[in-house]
């Protein structure tokens, strides 16, 4: 089974704690939660901010229990403050 490539795109405060470009590899079927554990291991200074992020793929907010089947972009949405 081949790894899939997940690009991390960050918005809001968490963006400042991560590099501009983050790409991670994982097996198909990996839960988003497990991928984020891997992310926190690589960037421990971002872990507390990642914990408060919602996740999105495309135009949908997705739960961390969801598994990743294909290469995609996973978006991290920090706590919001519009207006």
């Amino acid at each position, binding site marked *: 089974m081949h790894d899939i490539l997940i690009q991390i795109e960050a*918005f*809001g405060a968490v963006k400042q704690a991560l590099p501009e470009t983050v790409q991670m590899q994982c097996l198909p079927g990996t839960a988003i939660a497990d991928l984020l554990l891997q992310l926190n291991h690589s960037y421990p200074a971002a872990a507390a901010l990642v914990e408060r992020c919602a996740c999105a793929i495309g*135009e949908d907010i997705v739960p961390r229990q969801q598994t990743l089947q294909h290469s995609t972009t996973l978006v991290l949405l920090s*706590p*919001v403050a*519009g*207006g």
Partner: protein
Amino acid sequence: MQHLKQFARIQDTALSQSSFDEIQHFPECGGIGIFVGTVRNHHEGKAVQSLKYTAYAPVAEKMIRQIEQEIQQQYGVSYVRVIHRIGDLAIGETAIIAMAYAPHRREAFQACEVAVERVKHEVPVWKEEFYCDGSSQYVEGCCIRKDHPPVEVHTHTECCNHPHTGENAYQWPL
């Protein structure tokens, strides 16, 4: 079926009330609720020089449209629209416009206020403040993560003064 204007809810150029549909399209309505949010020059005692708004547009566009629809049904109003600006904004520039048309003023005010509150607290938009002393920071916001127990109760003063206990928690009046 009436044809209403199609426009982006997240825009990177100066906002205008001309983007919205005219009240004349809604002859049953006798009240307009409008909120225009502008950039002010201070925040928690610090002098603000400018703001930068960013958004994750794919979700933000979808969520604002959902919020508009929900509020129209919830408050029985004919028209609710919200547009939020992104990009670099100077003091005094318009950051958000909400418009609601209703048969009576009370529903128009209610719908307009709830629309603003929900967009501020639920939609993926972020505000970064740039201060006159050269520093900057993201304004503390509302966590929109829904896949963990909603134990968080916060009272940050800029964004809101109410506890967040679940989805669509805001009701008018407070």
